[in-house]
C-alpha cells in the first residue's frame, strides 16, 4: 500500500534546537486549589487526576482539546494503547521531542498519571526517526517507557495508526500536556505556558523556549535574537503554520509549536502547471492532487467530492514538491471548506 501512499522526504533541520536545553522565559506562575491537597501523588485516583487536569486547564497541544475531557471520554478497553505524541515530523519543530529528552522525569510522571486513569495495556512514546541531517540519536527508553521510532516520509503523524494492533482502541496525548499534568500533580501549577521552537535562518540563538501563553511573537523573537530582518515569520509548523504580518500583535496559544523566521520567503513567482504528477506521488492519502487542483480552480465542487477532497489532511506535501511553486495545498484546503459550507447550506 505504501506504493501509493508515499509522502515526502524532508530535511529536518532540528539542530541545534533539539540538543540545547529549553530556555524558560521569566514569568509568574499561577496555582490552583484542589479538594485533596494532602493526597500523595502515588495515591491519586483516576478521578482525582482528571480533576487535576481540569483545574490546571491543560490543553493537549497535539489536537487542541482539553486533557480532562480526553481522559474522561477515552475508553481503551482491553488491549488499548496509550501513545505519547512527541513525533515532530515537521522541519525545525522539536518542542515535543525536547520535552521528552530534557525533562524525562516529569514526562514519565505525567505518563504514569495518565496510565492510572486509562489503564492501557501498552504505552509508548512516539518520535520521528528520520532526522538524517544531524547525529542526534533518539533514546530507546524515556524513564521506563519505550520510545517507538516512527519512520518513513513526512507526514509521519498520519501514519501512527499503522503501528497499532487492529481492532484495539488507542488514545494519543501530547508530551507537553503530560508534562503539565505532572506539574499540576506536583506543584498544583496551572498550564500558563507552552513550549515553542524558535528557529529559522535569521534567528541568532535558535532553541526551544517555554513562554507564557499570550506572549507576542515579537517578544519571543527578541528573546532569541535576530541576525537580520526576516522576510517571513511563521507561527506554527513550517509545513502547516501561517505567515504573520504583525508580530507585535500575534500571540502564541497552547497549540502553537513554533515560531520560524526566514530570511527569504519562497517568493510569489509561479509557473503554470506542467503536469509532472509529483504532487500525486507526494500525497500521503493517494489523492489525485493534480486533477483536483484543476477542478478547484474551475469551481467544480461536485467533481472534487468524487475525487475525495474531504480526505485531504492539509499536510502541504503537494505544495512542497511542486516545481512550479503552485499553492496546491492552499487551493485544496479552500475547496474543502467551500464544500463543507455548501453541504451545510444544502446547495451540494
Amino acid at each position, binding site marked *: 500500500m505504501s506504493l501509493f501512499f508515499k509522502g515526502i522526504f524532508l530535511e529536518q533541520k532540528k539542530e541545534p534546537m533539539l540538543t540545547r536545553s529549553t530556555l524558560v522565559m521569566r514569568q509568574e506562575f499561577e496555582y490552583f486549589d484542589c479538594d485533596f491537597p494532602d493526597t500523595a501523588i502515588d495515591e491519586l485516583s483516576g478521578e482525582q487526576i482528571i480533576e487535576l487536569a481540569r483545574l490546571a486547564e491543560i490543553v493537549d497541544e497535539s489536537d487542541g482539546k482539553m486533557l480532562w475531557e480526553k481522559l474522561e471520554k477515552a475508553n481503551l478497553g482491553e488491549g488499548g494503547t496509550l501513545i505519547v505524541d512527541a513525533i515532530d515530523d515537521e522541519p525545525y519543530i522539536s518542542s515535543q521531542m525536547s520535552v521528552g529528552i530534557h525533562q524525562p522525569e516529569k514526562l514519565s510522571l505525567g505518563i504514569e498519571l495518565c496510565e492510572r486513569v486509562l489503564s492501557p495495556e501498552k504505552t509508548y512514546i512516539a518520535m520521528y526517526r528520520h532526522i538524517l541531517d544531524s547525529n542526534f540519536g533518539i533514546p530507546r527508553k524515556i524513564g521506563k517507557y519505550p520510545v517507538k521510532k516512527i519512520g518513513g516520509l513526512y507526514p509521519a503523524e498520519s501514519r501512527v495508526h499503522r503501528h497499532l494492533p487492529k481492532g484495539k482502541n488507542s488514545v494519543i496525548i501530547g508530551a507537553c500536556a503530560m508534562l503539565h499534568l505532572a506539574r499540576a500533580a506536583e506543584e498544583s501549577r496551572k498550564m500558563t505556558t507552552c513550549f515553542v521552537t524558535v528557529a529559522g535562518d535569521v534567528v541568532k540563538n535558535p532553541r526551544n523556549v517555554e513562554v507564557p501563553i499570550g506572549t507576542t511573537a515579537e517578544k519571543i523573537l527578541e528573546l532569541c535574537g535576530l541576525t537580520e530582518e526576516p522576510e517571513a515569520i511563521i507561527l506554527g509548523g513550517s509545513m502547516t503554520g501561517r505567515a504573520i504580518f504583525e508580530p507585535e500583535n500575534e500571540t502564541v496559544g497552547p497549540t502553537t509549536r513554533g515560531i520560524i523566521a526566514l530570511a527569504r520567503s519562497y517568493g510569489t513567482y509561479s509557473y503554470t502547471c506542467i503536469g509532472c504528477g509529483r504532487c500525486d506521488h507526494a500525497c500521503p492519502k493517494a489523492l489525485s492532487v493534480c486533477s483536483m487542483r484543476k477542478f478547484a480552480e474551475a469551481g467544480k465542487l461536485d467533481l472534487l467530492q468524487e*475525487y475525495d477532497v474531504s480526505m485531504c489532511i492539509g499536510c502541504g506535501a503537494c505544495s512542497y514538491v*511542486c516545481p512550479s511553486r503552485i499553492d496546491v495545498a492552499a487551493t485544496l484546503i479552500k475547496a474543502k471548506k467551500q464544500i463543507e459550507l455548501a453541504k451545510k447550506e444544502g446547495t451540494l
Partner: protein
Amino acid sequence: MKEKLMFQNAPHVRQSESVVTMMTDVIFALLPIYFMAFFYHGARSLVLGLVGIISCSVLSLLGSFFLREKPVPDLTPIITGLIIPLLLPADIPYYTVVSACAVAIFVVKVPFGGTGSNLFNPAAVGFASVAICWPELVFRYPVTMQAVEVFGKSTVKIAQSPAYSLSLGAVPDYNILDMLLGTAPGPMGATNILVVVACGIFLIVKKAVNWITPVSFLLPYSALCMIFPRISVSPLESLCYELFSGAIIFGAFFMLTEPVTSPKRDFGKLMAGISAAVVVFLFRYYGGFEMGFASALILMNVFSPIFDAICESVLHVIRHKESISDSLKAEMKRKKEEKEKPVVRPVKKVEETEAPGIPEETEVPEEPVEIDLSEEKEEEKEAAQL
C-alpha cells in the same frame, strides 16, 4: 521588521527544484548530443539548433502576446526548439525547422493555453508535420564525418538510414557498432545511441524524468522486436537493429517523458509505456514511414487522460477499501437477518388468507402485523401511483 514581511501560503519550506532547474537539466542533457552532431556533421547542426531555439522562443513570445498573458520564462520553448532539429537530417533547409517550430508552438501549444495545456507533444507534432510536407527532405540523410555546408546547397553524399532498410525488409548495410557509435546515417541527434543513453541516465539521476517511462517502453519494445523480427537475422541482431534505428531511444528518453502529455502516476506511466511500445512496433511493422515513433507518440498522447482516469478509479477503490468492505459486510448482515426472520412469513400468510376459513384462536403477534400493514400500505401507495 514589519515592512519587509511578505505573504506566503503554507508550507513555508519548498523544494529547491523548480521548473527552471528541471528544464535546465534537459537542456544540459541535450548539449552533448549537439556536440556529437557537430562532430559528425559540422557547424550546420549547431546553427540548426540555434534556429530552432530562436524560432520557438520568438513564436512563443508572440503566442503569449496573442493570448494577452505575461510571458513566463520557463525554458520549455527552448527544449522544443532543441529537440526538433535533432530528429531531422543535418542538411535540412532552415525553413523546414522554422515550419516545424511554428507548428509546434502555434498549432499545439498556443491554441490550448500555452505551457502545460498542450494535448500533444509539440516536438512530435512539429516533426510529423514536416515529415508529411517534405518527406523527400526529411527521410534522406547525409553521411557522417563530412561537414555539411552551413549556408547554400549541401554537397555531402546522401544515404538511406538503417530504418529505411528495415522498413523494406532488408538487413541494413551498417554493422551494429556503427549504429551504436552513430556513424550510420540517420536523424542528426538520434544516431549516437551511447551518448543518448548516457544523457537519458543523467536525466533519470537528476530526477528530471521518471525512469518508469523509458524502461516500460524499451523493455516491451525489445521483446516485441525479438519475437517478431522484420528481417531474417537472429533475434538479438534484430533487437539491436530495431532499437538503434529510427530515433527509438532518443524518443524514449526525451519525448515520451514529456511531463505535460504523459500520465501522472507511475502505474499510468507503466501502462502508457507498454502501450506505446506496442503502437510504435505496429507503426513500424505495418506503417509506411520509417520513423513511426512520432506518429505513434501523438496517438498515445490521446490516451494519457484515460490512463490517469484508470489510476484514479483503482485508487478510489483502495482509498475506500475499508468503507466499502464495511458496507458490504452490513449488506450481507442485513440479508442474513432477512433470511432468518421466521416471524414475518407466517403472519403474512395469515394476513393474505384472512378468509373466514381460518380458526379464530390463531394468535397473531402484534409487532409483525404492524410491519406488514405498513408494507401493504406502501404497496398500495405504489399501486395508486402507477
